[in-house]
């Protein structure tokens, strides 16, 4: 993208932090883009704890022996080359992999200390508390209002539904844009608005965690920045785990970064967790040469 076109494109919504971010985008020296760490390096309270997790598709391993602690109230980014199992790992946290025939899991994942794969755990209850935003915006073909009200209605949370819908839309920074057309179909919105609608739909259930799988990869740069802004706003109230293949995005928004890589194991490509630390640390002083190679763009 040329200098001028990017200038004109971001002009309408220009605000100081965004200009900075856009400038950083073009910077070749990635280390300058890293968000300064505001969290202690030790995790005091974990929402998720994955212990020795391996996931298989039809018996073939996709990720192997993952140990990962996701802290409460922070943004944790999962990065790595395509096919390294980021989405697979993300889906283990709300048992979405259960829906894929032939997908099996070994190891354990606890959510606030409770094993979510225990026999007496209902996956629907897990997903209700752990919201998910997908790569491609996927609003239902119903009105904006009904999209947001879908989850609450499903779970019988019908009291003050209007308020709940409004709060969710405000929370997703979409209210001002849609408050006069709540009855219109959600699919008529722009891509970025659709994705924020999906976020509103998720937070209408007041989840504890939001899992986002490359939430901005299908969006234009301005909509991407809007989603990143939103993630920073949601941080704290929600714990967020975000998958991205965009390193700058991880650097801009996340507190911690987990870097996954692909390893050849008996002729099969298997994803593994190479490094997991404060984002600042991963981007400026990676301890594994593979991480550094990926981050400086020499690989992936």
């Amino acid at each position: 993208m040329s200098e001028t076109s990017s200038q004109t494109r971001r002009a309408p919504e220009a605000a100081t932090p965004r200009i900075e971010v856009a400038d950083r985008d073009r910077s070749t020296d990635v280390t300058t883009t890293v968000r300064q760490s505001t969290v202690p390096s030790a995790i005091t309270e974990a929402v998720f704890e994955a212990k020795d997790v391996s996931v298989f598709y039809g018996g073939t391993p996709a990720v192997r022996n993952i140990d990962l602690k996701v802290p409460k109230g922070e943004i944790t980014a999962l990065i790595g080359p395509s096919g390294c199992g980021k989405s697979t790992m993300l889906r283990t946290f709300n048992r979405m992999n259960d829906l894929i025939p032939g997908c099996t899991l070994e190891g354990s994942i606890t959510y606030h200390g409770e094993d979510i794969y225990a026999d007496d755990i209902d996956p629907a209850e897990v997903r209700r508390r752990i919201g998910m935003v997908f790569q491609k915006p996927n609003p239902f073909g119903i009105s904006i209002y009904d999209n947001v009200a879908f989850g609450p209605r499903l779970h019988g949370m019908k009291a003050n539904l209007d308020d709940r819908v409004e709060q969710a839309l405000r929370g997703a920074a979409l209210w001002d844009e849609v408050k006069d057309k709540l009855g219109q179909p959600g699919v008529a919105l722009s891509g970025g608005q659709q994705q924020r609608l999906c976020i509103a739909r998720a937070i209408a259930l007041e989840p504890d965690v939001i899992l986002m799988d490359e939430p901005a990869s299908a969006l234009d740069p301005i909509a991407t920045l809007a989603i990143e802004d939103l993630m920073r706003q949601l941080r704290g109230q929600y714990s967020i785990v975000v998958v991205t293949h965009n390193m700058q995005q991880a650097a801009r928004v996340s507190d911690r970064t987990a870097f996954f890589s692909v390893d050849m194991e008996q002729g099969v490509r298997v994803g593994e967790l190479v490094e997991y630390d404060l984002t600042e640390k991963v981007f400026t002083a990676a301890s594994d040469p593979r991480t550094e190679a990926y981050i400086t763009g020499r690989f992936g």
Partner: protein
Amino acid sequence: MSTTLTPTTPPAPTGPGGLREIDAHTRGRKRRSLIARYVLTAGMVIALIPLLMIIWTVASNGVGALGWSFFTEIEPPARREGGGYLNGIVGTVYMVSIASLLAIPLGIMAAIYLVEFGHGWLARIIRFFTDVMTGVPSVFVGLFVYAALVRQFRFGTIMGAIGLAIMMLPIVVRSSEEMLKLVPDDMRFASFGLGARRWQTVQKVVLPMAGPGITTGAMLAVARAAGETAVLLLTALGSLQVVTALSGVAQSSITLLIYDGAKQPFDPGKERAWAGALVLMGFVLLLTITARYISSRARR
């Protein structure tokens, strides 16, 4: 070989202008495209001719005997003028309605099972029998119902309806299955991600989206049943009276009356048969157009 790869006159960059200067290859492509278009148009017109001839023949022959009395009176002895097909109309409406009540819900349920729930051997068996049933000639279905039920319970409305339902079932299953498969998995994942259970997802997301298509398929199955003859010969038999009994008494249908009317040598009876064909054609046409309208409006 190499001569075709390197054209004798290389398509040199013509620079600005020269839009009308077309080389030989482009001319060839253009000509082939034009020929294909003429051939396909001709094919369509040829295919349309028999259809138009049927409509014309039925309409011109049938309109003479068509009047109010055609719908209010029963068929008199063949050589006498006047009267109508009330007995046949009642029988057709009666049997097709019952058959629809049996086949449509059952067919839709089977399709939902196949697409949303079934992955094992039961699904494979259902799918196999649906395929087989689609190709079974209607006489066989008639013979089957005759052998299995009619010999024991005698000819009648319900026997005819069962025969028609068996004819309709594979059509409903197949078309509903296709429509359910058209619903993107994205939508299912969105719903599951909000903590919906499988059945809730089917009910609230999948069926509303597939509804218009399923309706269309069901209407085409109804049209198919309304025109069915061979099955009814062996299950309903035919009647000269209006029959309201569900069972024990042979029932009439428009197609059975047409079959009898066309066979005998008297003109009044033949004319009524043409009128019956016209009525049936109008009914089928109406159903088809409605089905088209529903699916086109849903697609928008």
